[in-house]
């Protein structure tokens, strides 16, 4: 899993993830992800469009950071997962607790709501 910083400022944390969100792909990068998200305590947009595979380990990483953000009054929104990745997220009801947007405009709107 690679983490790309799109925008980090007082208003937002906007990251893009790529690669595999599983045991092979993560290998410690979940701590780095937490540093970008939970530790910054800003509304967080996570672009998943370049994530090719996700397992429960990757979903757990998203849940942990979203929970930590929620405790500090900030929201996380997931952006543009592939069909396969979105099926995993929907199967676990993640869309019920971390909104999923399919465009940047929608993602920013959901973060502000």
């Amino acid at each position, binding site marked *: 899993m690679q983490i790309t910083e799109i925008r980090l400022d007082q208003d937002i944390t906007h990251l893009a993830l790529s690669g595999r969100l599983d045991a092979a792909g993560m290998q410690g990068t979940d701590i780095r992800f937490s540093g970008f998200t939970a530790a910054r305590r800003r509304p967080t947009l996570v672009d998943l469009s370049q994530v090719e595979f996700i*397992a*429960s380990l990757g979903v757990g990483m998203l849940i942990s950071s979203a929970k930590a953000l929620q405790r500090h009054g900030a929201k996380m929104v997931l952006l543009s997962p592939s069909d396969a990745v979105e099926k995993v997220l929907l199967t*676990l009801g993640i869309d019920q607790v971390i909104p999923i947007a399919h465009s940047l405009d929608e993602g920013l709107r959901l973060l502000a709501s």
Partner: protein
Amino acid sequence: MVEVLERSLDKSLPALIQLASEAQAFLAGAGVREPAMFKVQLALEETVRNLIEHSGASRTNRFQVRIEVGAGRVTIVLEDDGQPFDPDSAPPFDPSRPLAEREPHGMGVHLLRHFMQEIHYERLGAMNRLRMVVASP
């Protein structure tokens, strides 16, 4: 024609990473396409990680995996001599819980139930045998 990948590996994270890589190459070579490719990788990740984290002490600390591609399906058979674990015995997952009540674990069996066409568990003496089937038209 049936194509087979068989491995005997340590219950360890490096072994899971090796298996994931070898399985992906094997499945691609055997002509397995999406979404079956994704489902088989999901099955291997969830079940082997569960073995590594929860199967407890065993005599060998190893597992055997067989992946068979043919007749419009991919069959995965996983065997180990750890503690018995029948996926059917896992409590149902509630996808309607609020975020504050979610945990970052406990989701793997629910994914298997949803994405596998068949799941069959047997305890054979001191061995666990888990057989999963993914449709691969």
